[in-house]
């Protein structure tokens, strides 16, 4: 058993000796995060608050409606104006253009969410103005996040048994997307004047986990190459002439790759949080869970590639395909949220999509630790699958 640690520390020693490791695992992702963040306007925009003023009337006063209020409070688009005025007053304010809109949380909203009925918010707004479109989109998005998080949590609670959470969750979230959880009430009024502002940190908040995952997957190559190099130098064959168990050899490499990718995540999360001010610190425990399960998953994939590839060229080819396919499909470059329903479903075949969900549930959607449970489970499922394939392949392979 202790040989697992011996092999892992040997691998890490080799990796740390290699300047490419740092290049690939730290410098490139940081550079690309900055580049992409910049390209998408992460650093543009002034300091003045150009968010749209929106009234908020909570008739429900439940735990969930308070949660909803907090979510809106963090919005980059809406400046929340919490109020206890009557709905009629709010309508007036909107009509006069003093508010870009008003959200009313009806009594029973929280309960409906919990029992999985469609819970509806009321949005008072001018039909057809640009501000309304913006506010409406944001309200739908935020309410949707809460809705899907609640559903996710409920599902996990219900399926702690042996039912498959993946299928169920998928159907539920698809249903949720078809049925927007708000209803818009029209008013007639003058046009609210508000410039659409470029969203300050949302692009970095997206780019940071995206690049992190993209380059963690790029780390596959480094990891796979250690195993390929070991086979090519015939050290692997020599290892097999010692009384060292095959499974232990595999676990040793797995541990090394995991350690590498996990530390990369930690370094990049710190960079994203401290320098780019992406809100990872809200729930550090949840971020750790996502980072660890994503690292386990990616490391297992690296192991599989290392076991399958016979040459360095093959290792490169085998790594490039998942690198682009999984990152692209999983929304590491372009947020899945902006794509259609079908693409989102397909995208979630990629473990990257689940990791992105996990990170963004915390950093953008402002959800709690329970929101990372499903993404983490999905990632661990993939990790198990990849590791099983790698060890099956490794144990049936004749090394000469």
């Amino acid at each position: 058993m202790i040989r697992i640690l011996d092999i892992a520390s040997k691998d890490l020693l080799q990796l740390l000796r290699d300047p490419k490791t740092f290049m690939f695992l730290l410098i490139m992702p940081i550079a690309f995060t900055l580049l992409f963040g910049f390209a998408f306007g992460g650093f543009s925009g002034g300091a003045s608050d150009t968010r749209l003023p929106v009234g908020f009337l909570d008739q429900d006063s439940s735990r969930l409606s308070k949660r909803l209020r907090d979510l809106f409070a963090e919005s980059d688009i809406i400046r929340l104006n919490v109020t206890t005025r009557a709905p009629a007053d709010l309508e007036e304010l909107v009509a006069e253009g003093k508010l870009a809109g008003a959200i009313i949380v009806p009594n029973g909203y929280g309960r409906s969410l919990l029992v999985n009925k469609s819970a509806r918010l009321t949005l008072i707004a001018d039909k057809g103005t640009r501000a309304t479109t913006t506010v409406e989109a944001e309200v739908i998005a935020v309410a949707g996040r809460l809705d899907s998080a609640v559903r996710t949590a409920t599902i996990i609670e219900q399926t702690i048994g042996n039912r498959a959470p993946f299928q169920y969750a998928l159907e539920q979230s698809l249903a949720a997307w078809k049925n927007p959880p708000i209803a818009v009430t029209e008013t007639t009024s003058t046009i609210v004047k508000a410039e659409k502002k470029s969203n300050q940190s949302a692009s970095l908040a997206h780019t940071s986990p995206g690049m992190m995952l993209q380059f963690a997957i790029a780390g596959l190559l480094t990891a796979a190459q250690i195993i390929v190099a070991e086979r090519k130098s015939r050290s692997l064959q020599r290892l097999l002439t010692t009384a060292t168990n095959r499974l232990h050899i595999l676990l040793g490499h797995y541990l090394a790759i995991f350690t590498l990718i996990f530390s990369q995540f930690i370094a990049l999360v710190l960079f994203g949080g401290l320098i780019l001010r992406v809100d990872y610190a809200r729930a550090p425990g949840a971020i750790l869970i996502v980072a660890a399960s994503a690292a386990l998953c990616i490391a297992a994939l690296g192991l599989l590639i290392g076991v399958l590839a016979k040459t360095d060229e093959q290792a490169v080819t085998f790594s490039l395909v998942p690198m682009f396919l999984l990152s692209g499909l999983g929304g590491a470059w372009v947020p899945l949220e902006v794509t259609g329903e079908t693409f989102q479903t397909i995208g979630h075949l990629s473990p990257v999509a689940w990791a992105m969900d996990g990170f963004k549930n915390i950093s953008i959607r402002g959800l709690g630790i329970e929101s990372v449970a499903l993404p983490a489970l999905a990632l661990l499922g993939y990790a198990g699958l990849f590791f099983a394939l790698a060890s099956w392949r490794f144990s049936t392979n004749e090394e000469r």
Partner: protein
Amino acid sequence: MSANNIAISVTDLHKSFGELKAVQGVSFQVQRGEIFSLLGPNGAGKTTTISILSTLLRPDQGDAQVMGHSIRRDPMQVKSVLGVVPQEIALYEDLTARENLDFWGKMYGLRGAALRQRVQEVLEIIGLADRANGRVGKFSGGMKRRVNIGVALLHKPQVIYMDEPTVGIDPQSRRNILDSVVALKNQGMTVLYTTHYMEEAQELSDHIAIMDRGKLIAGGTNAELVQLVGEQTRIDLTLTVEASRVLPIWRAVEGVAHVSAEDGRVTVLVADSNLVLPRLFESATRLAARITSVDIREPNLEAVFLHLTGRALRD
């Protein structure tokens, strides 16, 4: 020979790679504490045999016992008594010599102070104590070879396989390696050695098996093998007198099988040059003739191989 004296017992091994029959029906026995060489040209199947005996490859047919453990049924037991020096250098080039030995020592189950001490000992044995902290990737071929061997010595195995350990290195490293092989034997290790250099097999081995195209074509001690061809030692001499004057006299010398002369040079075929050569000098002196040059050609495994296969050992 009691079974206890047998270190390795190989019975009817077969291994094919697709159509190619790399090993076909190989059987031999290696006694404890001896150096046993598999001598054969490139592609003879030496490495394949070694790989089977170190449990890396599964034989298609046949079995072998290493220190009483079957390679089929007890591979882990076999590995635990073994040290293997692979034909290719199997080291981590980005680690230093000491780091390599340290890692491999752990894989052989050594830890802590015992490991540190043994690594130091092995560094001395392979003559690289002063280069211990140099990266293996920067070493010369000969130095790498020595580290490659050192790794297999770490856990003081009962049996050590060395697959062509002297290929492609300088004469000095080669000497160092050959000497250390003999030293291993003197410490009681059993050595299974493969080579395509007949001089090495001849110098080192207690027993030799000649391998060609997946089969053992002959086996025995060096002397036994040489007798297979029935060839005698050939001595070529030049003299200060007419060759014809010594011919009749030398023909009568005890131990001489045949004498002939050509271009002023006399060729004598004998069974044992050590015995006959003094007698030739003695009789020449009596004739007041001086011998000005002597060239002795011992019969060798090269000749044996040629005799058995019709091909030269080295191509």
